[in-house]
């Protein structure tokens, strides 16, 4: 085998990231778009294939690992974040990605999700949120809208849903973003941003399930609605939306309101300017909950990015520090370390 460490890196293409396995999602599933955008953006993140690991749990989304030509591990329900944490702590040199769904991450795997965010383990979590259990054929999930009629809620679900952005922010994720399966270019940008981030990167992707929850995001993402219902966030830019970007979000104290820029009473200077690095958690939560008011659009883009040391760096640093202080451990000394006595 040739030693290729010093070889000139060959420019990879989307095809290099395809495992060649037959993709078995339902025709028209939003997962195809996510797979395509990941494969298209990965050549640009400049990480060698062998350094990339995809971990998934159980669910439609979790079949993702089989389709990527990287190291992959399709594990058990809900545990992808915990397994990914083990991979990253053991091997900080690897780029570790989690493909997961709303049931896998936020129901059975909720505990691992919040603790991964809290610890700021340097892994990237892509949440394929279709607001339904797909692989078990259509039961309501922890992100399903209240009142949703499904096989296990024939008279409508009485559950309140999670707001995934808010949950991730609350748990301390250092990178929180949102995109949609229908927004190919936007998703690629967000995936690249997540790849660059050091720390837990959480990306919610609105993903349509054509079989069990078809069109659930149409009120936001359809061609007819997106101009008025999708707020595309750009760092340092005023929050504008609507046809011709003539609507803006103004922060009236803690209350976000829509202002019409066609009205001469309103000025562009009144519009809230997005700051991904805003030290105020409160403003990030206001953004995450923007669409709680049906008059307001849903946020897309990077909601918040914070730079803080990662868990895995902390582990490495502590080992280096203690090793420097005590010297590299000697087994002989460890075994004979404590109070000993001789028998002759």
């Amino acid at each position, binding site marked *: *085998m040739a030693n*290729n460490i010093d070889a000139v890196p060959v420019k990879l293409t989307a095809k290099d990231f395809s*495992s060649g*396995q037959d993709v078995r999602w339902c025709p028209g599933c939003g997962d195809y778009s996510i797979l395509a955008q990941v494969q298209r953006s990965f050549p640009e993140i400049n990480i060698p*294939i*062998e*350094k*990339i*690991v995809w*971990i998934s749990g*159980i669910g439609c989304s979790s079949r993702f*690992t*089989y389709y*990527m*030509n*990287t*190291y*992959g*591990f*399709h*594990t*058990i329900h809900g*545990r992808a974040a*915990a*397994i*990914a*944490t*083990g*991979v*990253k*702590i*053991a*091997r900080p*040199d*690897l780029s570790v990605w989690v493909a997961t769904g709303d049931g896998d991450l936020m129901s059975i795997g909720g*505990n*691992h999700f919040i*603790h991964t965010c809290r610890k700021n383990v340097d892994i990237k979590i892509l949440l394929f949120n279709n607001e339904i259990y797909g692989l078990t054929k259509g039961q309501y999930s922890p992100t399903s809208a209240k009142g949703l009629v499904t096989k296990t809620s024939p008279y409508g679900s009485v559950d309140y849903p999670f707001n995934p952005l808010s949950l991730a922010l609350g748990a301390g994720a250092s990178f929180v973003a949102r995109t949609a399966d229908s927004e190919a270019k936007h998703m690629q940008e967000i995936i690249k941003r997540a790849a660059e981030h050091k720390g837990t990167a959480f990306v919610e992707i609105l993903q349509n399930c054509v079989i069990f929850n078809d069109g659930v995001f149409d009120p936001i993402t359809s061609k007819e609605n997106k101009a008025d219902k999708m707020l595309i966030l750009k760092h340092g830019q005023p929050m504008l939306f609507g046809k011709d970007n003539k609507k803006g979000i103004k922060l009236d104290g803690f209350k976000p309101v829509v202002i019409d820029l066609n009205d001469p009473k309103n000025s562009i200077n009144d519009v809230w300017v997005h700051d991904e690095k805003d030290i105020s958690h409160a403003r990030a939560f206001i953004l995450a909950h923007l669409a709680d008011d049906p008059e307001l659009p849903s946020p897309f883009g990077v909601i918040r990015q914070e730079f803080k040391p990662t868990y895995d760096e902390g*582990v490495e640093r*502590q*080992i280096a520090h*203690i*090793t420097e*202080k*005590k*010297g*590299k*451990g000697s*087994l*002989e000394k*460890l*075994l*004979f370390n*404590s*109070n*000993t*006595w*001789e*028998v*002759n």
Partner: protein
Amino acid sequence: MAQETEKETLDLKEVTIRFAGDSGDGMQLTGSQFSDTTALMGNDLGTLPDYPAEIRAPAGTLYGVSGFQVHFSSSDIHTPGDTPDVLVAMNPAALKKNLADLKRDGIIIVNTDSFDAKNLKLAGYDKNPLDDDTALAGYKVYPVPITTLTSTALKDSGLSIRDINRCKNFFALGLMYWLYNRPLEPTLKWLNSKFKNKPEILNANETALKTGYFFGDTTEIFENRYTVEPAKLKKGTYRNISGNEATALGLVTASIKSGLPLFLGSYPITPATDILQFLAGYKNFGVKTFQAEDEIAGITSAIGAAFSGSLAVTTTSGPGVALKTEAIGLGVMTELPLVVVNVQRGGPSTGLPTKTEQADLLQAVYGRNGEAPIPVLAAATPSDCFYMAMEASRIAVKYMTPVMLLTDGYIGNGTEPWRIPHENEIPEIPVKFATEIEGFAPYSRDENLARPWARPGTPGLAHRIGGLEKANITGNVNYDPSNHDFMVKLREQKIQNIKNDIPDLAVQGDAEGELLVLGWGGTYGAIKEAVDKVTSRGLKVSQAHLKYIHPMPKNTKDVLSKFKKVLIPEINLGQLAKIVRSEFLIDVLQYNLVRGLPFRSSDIENQIVEILGGKNGK
């Protein structure tokens, strides 16, 4: 200490002391200090810490009593002692709870200060047993006002009354050091390192310790003191070690001997937490410990580390194993090396968290969905945990499989002298990672039926594994009926082959005869002592002890079939007995006592004598 020789010193062969008091009285510390000093004196010893699950149960109550028993001897011993010769009772509840276990003519040292109306009532005494001629008749009772003597000695220490009272266990320790002729220096050294930044606490404890020692010397109440000569153990360097520390050291040793970095994913659980605590301190050995958010993350993070090329371990107790069960199955399906340590405790459910039991054997061998065989190993004594932790690691990486190592609360917390092996006497654990692209297939097989271990980061070997059924060789997802049948049998065969890679089951005593006592795990010492006693009286009994339970050594059936009767004592309702019957169609006699405590050797001795009846096995 010139005058200390005035009292006659009597030479004893062995002594068992039980320290008992409130769970806040520091009895565990007192007992372990006495044990460590005794070990340094060269005695063989065994210990039994026995404490309640509550950290500070209400003072003076029976259920708040914490005990520590130490058995030390001038010869080779195997248990913490059946019946104490000496009881140190710091309050009425400690006396009441432990009196029945004491030898008929045993010594009782009581802290008379705590025998007030309130404490007597809490312990359920109608009248003070110290004033009652019948209550303690037959025992040698030494009443000592330990609290008063300690506070008098510390009245100028500047400490609060509360802090002064907390020093009374060191008075008791000092007194016992005098009575059993032990030096103060090891404990003084320990105090100096423990309280080097708290000089007032250091001085107070030193003073209490010395005051207790000199009290023994000057008081008129003790007519004698005792000594126990060093034991004639095998030549070498020794240390006193608990099973949990030995497990931690065994894992670090396996890491060094295999060249694999050690990763521990774990969640605190009694009585296994010590292993996590020990390993968390070994940072300069490159050990990575991850205190996970729950038991499941403990094992799944370890599985992630195993996939990435670490020596991966998770440590827990029975309830934790229940939670980790699905993930162990993932380890079986993906054929990744993983060591799962179960320090067994009393069950079911939360059960008896601080007490010992052997009732997780069937869980270990069979307790997973699907056909999910894994090797199951069991350590026999505290120091044996060191070797079995290395064995579990060796088998895991050689056969690419999760391995369950069973220890228990008794050997995990109990201690014994350990003849320390030198680094160069410990064999290497060979590991081979896949690196060649040519011919690589994730589920190809070596001569042991193990699949290759291809770490992420290796160019050209990117592959996918998972919990779905695999096609052999390629590792592709495969639902074909005949493939599933093939893979189920292949995984079973891989584990069965380990039989050829472990030592034969050894028999102590004759290789055939009337009765074989077969044990497993932490009951080794009690069985050994019982068998030694009856054979010294001329009975014909042999002993064998299983440390590899799944698969069992390949000569196991032969060994068992050479005896007319096989007795299996277990701290459960007969779990090994079930396995032996089903594997070998050999019937066995059971002896089951599930009290949350280790066996007394006398219980097993009585069983043996009863089984052999009038014939005495001759």
